[in-house]
């Protein structure tokens, strides 16, 4: 679905990461895996470090910290927010939703609407489009978009194909209606036929959690997991991103009237360095315009990875000037979304962990 929304801008960004550093090689050695194989994977895929949430910290906590720091940095009172959108697949509860809990924690007005989007790695782009829609046509002047997950809680430590990928983070993005901002161009797409490629089979209404769903099994490659763990068919997901993401990026470039060389940056969801590098190349972007360092520091942060990469790679210039940016998220659903926008100057709160170390 294509949409172009005008006179809306991103006014500020903040990301709070998990506070516990995990090292791919050290973790693998502790499980008895061979150093040579770990180094092969580390060098090829780009798995080094990641930041996971400390015990008891949830995506809600991470996003609340990011939101408070952003509002403080911008000098905006919470009463000025008209809507809160919370993008997550790891909410505190099945009911109530995280946006309502955040609404209460921030002490927002009763006239502030709040709702969740159950999206993963494509979720920041989906949430941005919803926020822009609320500003363009929904009567909102300011929308707080919070996007984050603690996917490290869903993986099995003995599943070496999935567990080492994920870091935890929460982001806050403030979207404002304004009289003079250039258009944002979106393309949001989905393919539910691939839904099982990224899936937590048990723990929901279809297959409630029981002792049986916690029984671990070993797969053909020796990875151990159970039905309440996150399962990812890596080759299917890679295949899907190669098939769909370059076309999605090309479509928003066309809507914006830009060639890849005219854009300042392509911010891809940071699944892993290998995937970002391969897709960036296929999209026609030079490697220096496709940041891919944040994934080696923070891990795959689900819906928080695009805002984290914006801050990590472009935080300084974005506070000073306007950049032509294309962002694309892709993952669970399967779903993918791209946006082309002119971004900055904007307020950026420093990237930091929660709790702060």
């Amino acid at each position, binding site marked *: 679905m294509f949409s172009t929304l005008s006179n809306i801008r991103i006014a500020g960004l903040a990301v709070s990461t998990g506070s516990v550093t995990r090292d791919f090689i050290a973790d693998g050695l502790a499980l008895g895996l061979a150093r040579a*194989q770990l180094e*092969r*994977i580390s060098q*090829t*895929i780009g798995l080094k470090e990641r930041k996971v949430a400390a015990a008891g910290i949830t995506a809600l906590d991470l996003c609340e910290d990011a939101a408070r720091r952003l509002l403080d940095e911008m000098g905006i009172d919470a009463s000025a927010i008209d809507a809160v959108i919370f993008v997550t697949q790891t909410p505190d509860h099945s009911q109530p939703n995280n946006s309502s809990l955040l609404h209460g924690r921030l002490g927002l007005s009763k006239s502030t609407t709040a709702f969740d989007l159950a999206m993963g790695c494509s979720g920041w782009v989906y949430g941005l489009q919803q926020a822009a829609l609320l500003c363009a046509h929904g009567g909102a002047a300011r929308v707080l978009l919070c996007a984050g997950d603690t996917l490290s809680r869903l993986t099995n430590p003995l599943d070496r*194909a999935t567990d080492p990928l994920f870091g935890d983070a929460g982001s806050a993005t403030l979207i404002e209606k304004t009289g003079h901002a250039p258009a944002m161009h979106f393309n949001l797409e989905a393919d539910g036929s691939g839904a099982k490629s990224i899936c937590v089979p048990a723990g929901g209404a279809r297959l409630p959690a029981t002792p049986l769903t916690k029984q671990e099994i070993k797969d053909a*490659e020796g990875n151990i997991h159970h039905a309440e763990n996150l399962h990812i*068919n*890596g*080759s*299917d997901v*890679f*295949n899907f991103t*190669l*098939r769909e993401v370059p076309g999605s990026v090309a479509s928003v470039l066309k809507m914006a009237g830009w060639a890849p060389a005219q854009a300042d940056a392509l911010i891809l969801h940071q699944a892993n360095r*290998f995937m970002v590098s*391969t897709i960036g*190349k*296929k999209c026609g972007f030079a490697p220096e315009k496709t940041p891919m360092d944040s994934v080696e520091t923070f891990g795959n942060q689900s819906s928080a990875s695009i805002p984290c990469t914006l801050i990590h790679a472009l935080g300084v210039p974005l506070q000073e000037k306007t950049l032509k940016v294309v962002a694309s998220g892709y993952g669970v659903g399967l779903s993918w979304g791209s946006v082309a926008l002119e971004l900055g100057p904007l307020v950026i709160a420093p990237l930091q962990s929660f709790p702060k170390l």
Partner: protein
Amino acid sequence: MAKSEAELWSALQADVDGLTGPGITPETRLETLPQWDSLAILLVITHFEQVHGIVLSGSQIRACKTGREILQLIPR
């Protein structure tokens, strides 16, 4: 001019570390290779996309029993 099987195999080996090593040929059974794993399958997908312009699925590659069967997935 169409490339020979040896040329195609050599190009595939250059991109997929799991298919390299002493005595590994297109006839070698993939299941006997210690590094024939999910990472190697990602590298095969990438090789086919970048060199041959087609996107293979993981199941297409997993169904192959030898390197020769992988090479047979190249469009003629």
